[in-house]
């Protein structure tokens, strides 16, 4: 059985107090709790502060490009569905440049867990507005305040067809770990948006601010498979909520894709038999 130490790799380099530390710890705890072995897990990240998570997580990893964690993760999952694939990144990475991929990964319902460390700001590029920055929020690139409406990750994911939608807060390790565990166990695309405060550049959406405003849906009774009800509640809470919001039982992409097999594509024989080769060429014989 793997221990927490097996899922650790080198010391993280985030700013002291960064919300991403607990996200990493929580992911490690969830994996240990589920009895996963590090070699069977793959953590794929995008770019920015959050992107460093794949280096610090003791499993196989891919630190890909800005906004490209999801296509990388989907390629890996389609290559070997037996791996537990976790894609992780930030709000800028995932909802800015990666927005197109996000919507399509939801539609496809590829069995991966997508963890977004949402701090409402660009950290590593030193404090510009992000797609989830609240309207009116002043940053280096929005001196007069953000003019656009923020992206609403939960509603968006539900509309796009994600089969598991949840939100956590990096200030609540216990709930976050429970949610991540459920998300990894869920068969299909899981979005876990995590409020992960940037202690250096975001002076508005702080730990205290989240603690004051968050509504905990896990303490509410409602039908988690009722998308409209989930949407209504998220809307009412203005998106500042935590818990498993919505969950749907739907086949994962690797089960329904043309050519689906019960095992990973990587296990297929590369060499074709003489009969297979002849049959292929027979298509062209005239």
């Amino acid at each position, binding site marked *: 059985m793997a221990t927490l130490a097996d899922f650790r790799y080198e010391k993280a380099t985030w700013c002291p107090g960064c919300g991403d530390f607990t996200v990493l710890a929580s992911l490690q705890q969830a994996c240990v709790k589920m009895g996963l072995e590090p070699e069977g897990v793959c953590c794929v990240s995008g770019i920015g502060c959050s992107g460093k998570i794949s280096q610090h997580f003791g499993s196989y990893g891919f630190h890909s490009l800005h906004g490209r964690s999801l*296509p990388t993760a989907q*390629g890996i999952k389609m*290559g070997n569905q037996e791996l537990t694939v976790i894609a992780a990144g930030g709000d800028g990475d995932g909802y800015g440049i990666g927005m197109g991929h996000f919507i399509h990964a939801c539609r496809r319902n590829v069995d991966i867990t997508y963890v977004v460390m949402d701090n409402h700001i660009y950290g590593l590029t030193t404090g510009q507005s992000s797609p989830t920055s609240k309207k009116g929020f002043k940053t280096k690139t929005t001196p007069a305040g953000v003019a656009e409406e923020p992206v609403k990750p939960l509603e968006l994911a539900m509309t796009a067809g994600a089969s598991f939608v949840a939100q956590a807060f990096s200030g609540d390790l216990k709930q976050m770990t429970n949610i991540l565990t459920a998300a990894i166990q869920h068969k299909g695309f899981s979005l876990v948006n995590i409020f992960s405060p940037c202690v250096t550049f975001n002076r508005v959406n702080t730990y205290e601010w989240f603690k004051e405003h968050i509504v905990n849906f896990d303490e509410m009774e409602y039908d988690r498979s009722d998308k409209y009800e989930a949407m209504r509640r998220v809307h009412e809470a203005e998106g500042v909520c935590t818990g498993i919001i919505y969950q749907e039982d739907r086949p994962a992409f690797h089960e329904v894709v043309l050519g689906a097999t019960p095992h990973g594509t990587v296990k297929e024989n590369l060499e074709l038999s003489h009969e297979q080769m002849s049959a292929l060429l027979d298509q062209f014989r005239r």
Partner: protein
Amino acid sequence: MTNEFTWKVGGAQGEGIDSTGEILATVLTRMGYYIFAYRHFMSLVKGGHTNYKIRANNEEQVDYHGDTLDILIAFDQTTIDENEDELITDGVILHDAKFAGTSKRDSLKICSVPMSQMAKDLGNVIIKNMVAAGASSYVLGIDPNNFYEQIEAQFGKKGAELVELNKTAFNKGYDYVKENYADVQRPVPAATKPATPRLLMTGNESIGVGALMAGCRILAAYPITPATEIMYWLLGNMKDVGGKVLQAEDEIAACIMAIGANYSGVRAMTSTSGPGLSLMMEAIGMAGISETPLVIIDVQRGGPSTGLPTKTEQSDLNGALYGSHGEIPRVVLAPTSIEDCYYQTFHAFNLAERYQCVVIVLSDLLIGMNKMTLDTIDLNRYSIDRGEMVTQEQLDALEKGAFKRFALTESGISPRSIPGMKNGRFCALTNEHEETGLEIEDVPMRKAQMNKRFRKMETLAREVNEWGVDYQGAESPELLLIGYGSTKAQIAEAVKNLDGMVVGHLQLRAMMPFPSDAVKRRIDAAKRVIVLDNNFTGQLTGLIHREIGYHDKTETLTKYDGNPFTVGDILSFVKG
């Protein structure tokens, strides 16, 4: 030449031009002729002008559709207007009687055949294809039984009634021309090869077969002309070998999914054309620095931007050679024929894994979407070579966490693990990294990793002189013709027409690493050198200049009107 004939059918897109051509192409191949079929089409679904040309030879393989035309089937006047110049002096036009059918050339033999009317009388307008086939059959002097066999093979499953209808339509066309224009018959030379089953395929299909045989089990792609047929073919065949075809949301995702799949241990590729290749540039860098194998098939079309989607060009060369930010080792291959598409694709997978790098295969529309008869494909020329992979035993012998995925080896190749292997953990990083994969910015390690990555290309740079070029001709020619990729057929044919001149023909199959020694030796030995570039700026000439010089000795013949070089283009440039 007496052992050949050419035939073309033209009309508006959506009139069944392709199916008319396909019928004849199949019949001729089954009879033992070698054919090359060329599709001229536009980027729209209905309307516009489209045509399908067949060049047939009774003795040997033909890999180019030829400069001239013997027989033209016209479903509209535009077909005559746009194609009459290609006809030989006493060429034949068989046109649908629904229009007058006029030509500015008096020497041509014009026959009016009520194709649409006959089809309408039979209650099926589409069947004018078969009327046209019947008319062609008479003109070419082909025994109708050959067509009957094909009709039965094609429609037999759909019922006897449909077979009869098609035969009737065929006979109507045949009889009409026989009765009204008996003297236009041009009996074709008999096929000399026994009509054993041979292969009739496109370059795109040849790439698909090559990929499957090479062990490719995932294609992630986005539809784009002229590459989509690779996807279609693999959609039909991948499932039978446990593989998957993923239609991504865009080319960025397609390329990156292919990288992810390769990282997971699967042989995977993406296929695209110029505009898609542009979108893949950042992914190319990602594969390069993370040392993930990747095969990209680029079926080039006319550019720039969305340019000429249905026309051929060789203008993605510079993009393939230099595209992406920063510097990475990479391989660029260029298939020279439909058959070579198979070999180069197979080879691409081996090189990608052996050198853990990006391999771009530069095909183009000319060989990609057109069809020819092949005697066979040598399935034993290449076998699967997955390069250096660590074994579980090797990993078990290491201390925990000590595996160096990016080890600074002498060859530059660092044996790789794949996810699932115990103690083989690493993080593939797009940032610069040290040997285990951790991000670094220190000077010595940065330099060591760059050096290591480029060391991989040193071995390849030596071996590419062996397989990266094809040369035919004298040791010291007075004229050397150089081309890359698909221009091979026309150059070879032009050479045959340069009787009395000592000519050499050098065709490049690999563009990077550049086979400098092989090319330099040939240019050294030649008096005059002409480089063919199916693009405006002379990209191949530029590459030769950059790699080995010879600015004064090389002349460039360019073509950028969307059409492939003709033999005539080459001959008139040579003769000046």
